[in-house]
């Protein structure tokens, strides 16, 4: 086996090690900390590059999957086995994650320059990168789950990085808890899978849980509603994926997560972590697509249908809500939600390659957009409300250019921008989907909206004249790094250390799409494992759809331009153009369909009520009953005693005493004494044993 495969563990180990060392450093060693993090990231980037090249040299076919498994520890008579795998999926993800993390690290050097906790920041970042890479290379669902949880933890820590700001703390908590809900289902699915197959390794020379033998065993039995076991497991695991990558019911944490530093939003909540959910589904795709019939590529199993519908709904929802946001980062967050929906949809309708292609391209242009937004925020001294920006083009040309590239890529501007190719792939697959065509229309409408809100945002931010002067100075974003430093300045371009990554990312955002164009589907074939060949004939099949989607994009751009650019936005406090047209709908969208409110009103409230009811029962009903009973007996005893001592001679006194003592004993039931409670336990034990013996008798 090759060196790189044997030592693939170094890729996650290096950043984790760096994080561990940085954790010991003080704030005055910030330079050392940053350089450590960047150096470790660079090394693991080189390693993953090596792995990628090695895989390329290896050629195609199923031979392009190398696995290293080892025993972790034994419990009972079984060994828990972990391992890592190197296959095209892993290689591509590794390359993407390491590269973007590297750029983001470099960017954060500039962004967090004035923060007083930057060493802590880099420690968390490095830890996150390591855990994420662990998720990518894991060959065991258990290992993947562990790294997955560490990723969740670091995301929590980083969202709440400015814990002094209560909003950030709340957002961190929210993110953590919501993702836990998904992870619970994930864990259940994992346990079920283990119970069924007896292994959690993905690939184990034919014995892994993703390989034919296990899958055939899984699809053999069916559970409730006639679902196959594989479907049940897949759906449970999909819940975890949905939690991580903000699919519809569990998306609520992602927009709030924007309280964190912007590099974090770029790295974790746009490029890598939220993509982990998609990656997970892509990884267990054989399980999702397993069907009673032998396993062709695109059988729309129930699991895949669920994935598709959820993805489509999320895509539409996210782009709808993004239309009506004013916070620059929230817009991007909702667009991320919708794009993740696209990925899921792609996985559902088009298989691994389609979804992964969009994942990769999206990772680049979305992190580009976030970093650009960060640069804007940095330049505007912590301002995040796009209504208070405007006219920034003159002040920060580089940012504008790169941001425009990212924006066009996200809209899917035809031919030259990566987003176009990947999104078109998904739409095409959805069009060809055998089950239903609704997802296609949802996705198409989502594409239109995407173009629209991105144009809106761009116009708000860069076009027109600056609206900062006229507004009363709002309190800068709580505890923001740059917030308190450069207040009074006019907007300024960011330092080179921040703009350089932007330029690099912009280049990728533009040209990355070409590796997956229908004419030369290199990426898909690389994932699929057959040679890629260049034929422009492929265009003919997809041409009408391409034209259609391009038209949609142009329509969206035109609408945006019409509403927001033809008539300049002069006044910061002026109502939004769309709001003028349709205020009610706008407010509904602006509040994200009130889903947060809904959750607060239902789940949270219900929980509190339940707790209160339990408390009330305990306080009044139970103890009340006990007390009432004891008082009753006491009263009886007292009555008896009274009557007796008054009327009859003292001969009965003893009896009364016993009765009253009985009352006192009963009142010990609630005596607040440990020992009386213990006595009750003892009595219960006696009764129990008696009953059991009786049962044994009969």
């Amino acid at each position, binding site marked *: 086996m090759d060196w790189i495969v044997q030592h693939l563990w170094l890729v996650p180990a290096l950043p984790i090690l760096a994080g561990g060392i940085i954790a010991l450093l003080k704030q005055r060693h910030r330079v050392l900390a940053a350089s450590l993090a960047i150096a470790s990231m660079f090394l693991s980037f080189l390693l993953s590059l090596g792995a990628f090249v090695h895989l390329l040299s290896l050629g195609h076919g199923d031979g392009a999957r190398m696995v290293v498994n080892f025993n972790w*520890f034994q419990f*009972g008579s079984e060994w828990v086995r972990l391992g890592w795998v190197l296959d095209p999926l892993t290689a591509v993800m590794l390359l993407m994650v390491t590269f973007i993390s590297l750029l983001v690290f470099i960017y954060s050097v500039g962004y967090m320059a004035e923060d007083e906790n930057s060493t802590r920041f880099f420690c968390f970042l490095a830890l996150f990168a390591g855990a994420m890479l662990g998720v990518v290379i894991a060959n065991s669902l258990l290992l993947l789950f562990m790294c997955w949880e560490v990723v969740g933890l670091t995301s929590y820590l980083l969202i709440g990085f400015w814990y002094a700001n209560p909003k950030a703390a709340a957002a961190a908590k929210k993110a953590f808890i919501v993702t836990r809900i998904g992870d619970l289902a994930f864990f259940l699915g994992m346990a079920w899978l283990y119970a069924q197959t007896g292994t959690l390794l993905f690939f184990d020379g034919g014995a892994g849980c993703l390989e034919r033998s296990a899958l055939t065993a899984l699809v053999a039995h069916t559970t409730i509603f006639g679902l196959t076991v594989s479907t049940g497991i897949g759906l449970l695991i999909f819940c975890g994926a949905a939690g991580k990558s903000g699919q519809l019911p569990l998306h609520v944490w992602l927009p709030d997560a924007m309280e964190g530093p912007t590099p974090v939003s770029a790295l974790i909540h746009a490029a890598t972590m939220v993509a982990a959910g998609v990656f997970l589904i892509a990884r267990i795709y054989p399980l999702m697509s397993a069907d009673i019939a032998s396993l062709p590529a695109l059988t729309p199993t129930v699991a895949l249908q669920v994935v598709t519908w959820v993805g489509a709904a999320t895509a539409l929802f996210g782009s709808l809500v993004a239309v009506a946001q004013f916070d620059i980062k929230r817009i991007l967050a909702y667009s991320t939600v919708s794009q993740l929906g696209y990925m899921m949809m792609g996985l559902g309708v088009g298989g691994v390659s389609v979804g992964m292609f969009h994942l990769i391209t999206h990772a680049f242009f979305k992190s580009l957009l976030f970093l650009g937004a960060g640069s804007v925020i940095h330049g505007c001294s912590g301002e995040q409300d796009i209504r208070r920006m405007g006219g920034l083009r003159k002040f920060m040309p580089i940012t504008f250019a790169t941001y425009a590239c990212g924006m066009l890529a996200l809209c899917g501007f035809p031919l030259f921008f990566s987003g176009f190719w990947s999104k078109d792939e998904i739409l095409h697959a959805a069009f060809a989907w055998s089950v239903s065509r609704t997802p296609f229309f949802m996705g198409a409408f989502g594409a239109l909206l995407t173009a629209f809100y991105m144009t809106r945002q761009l116009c708000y931010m860069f076009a027109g004249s600056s609206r900062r002067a006229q507004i009363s100075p709002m309190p800068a974003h709580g505890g923001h790094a740059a917030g308190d430093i450069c207040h009074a300045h006019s907007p300024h371009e960011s330092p080179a250390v921040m703009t350089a990554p932007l330029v690099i990312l912009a280049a990728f955002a533009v040209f990355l799409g070409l590796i997956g164009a229908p004419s030369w589907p290199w990426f898909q074939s690389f994932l699929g494992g057959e040679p890629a060949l260049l034929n422009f004939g492929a265009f003919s099949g997809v041409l009408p759809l391409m034209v259609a989607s391009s038209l949609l994009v142009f329509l969206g751009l035109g609408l945006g331009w019409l509403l927001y650019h033809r008539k300049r936005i002069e006044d910061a406090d002026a109502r939004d153009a769309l709001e003028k047209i349709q205020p009610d709908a706008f407010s509904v969208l602006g509040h994200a369909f009130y889903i947060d409110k809904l959750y607060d009103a239902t789940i949270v409230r219900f929980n509190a009520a339940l707790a209160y009811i339990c408390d009330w029962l305990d306080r009044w009903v139970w103890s009340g009953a006990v007390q009432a009973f004891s008082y009753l007996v006491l009263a009886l005893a007292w009555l008896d005693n009274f009557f007796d001592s008054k009327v009859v001679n003292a001969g009965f006194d003893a009896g009364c005493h016993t009765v009253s003592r009985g009352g006192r*004993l009963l009142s010990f039931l609630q005596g607040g004494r440990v*020992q009386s409670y213990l*006595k009750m336990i*003892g*009595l219960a034990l006696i009764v129990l*044993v*008696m009953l059991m013996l009786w049962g044994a008798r009969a």
Partner: protein
Amino acid sequence: MTAFFLIVAALTIAGTAAAMSLRNPIHCILALTLSLVGFAALYLQLGAQFVGFTQVLVYVGAVAILAVFAIMMTRSANPPEGQSHQAAFSSSWLTGGAIAAVIFAVLAWCILSKSTPMQTAIQQPDVSVNQIGDALMHKFALPLEIVGVLLTAALIGAVILAMPERRKTL
């Protein structure tokens, strides 16, 4: 039913009874150590050498000393003249004793009424420490880890509990 067993059993019972009945807490602890050593001797007689010595090491060496320290710190040994003649037993000791007695009766009845499955040829199983270590490292690795975590948590918890709590400054 060897004489050794009878002697040790008698000693253990005596120690336990004394530990639960003596008035002075320190005397109780000393009696307790007697009964714990008796337990250890019983383990040894049953051929569980490791457990027996661990028992002495942990209970006599740690738990008893810990209890003594607790008694010293709570000044419940030789109380001052004020309530020196306070009852050692709780006011409702009768019911407690009765319940315990009934439980013993029930248990004894269960034991004597049922004939437990016995291994046919009772040979002294000599279990070497190596076997125990091997089992701990392989078959019982997970419980071992869990116990380690538990002990760590207990350590931290005990320290925090015993720390003099300072009033809230924030």
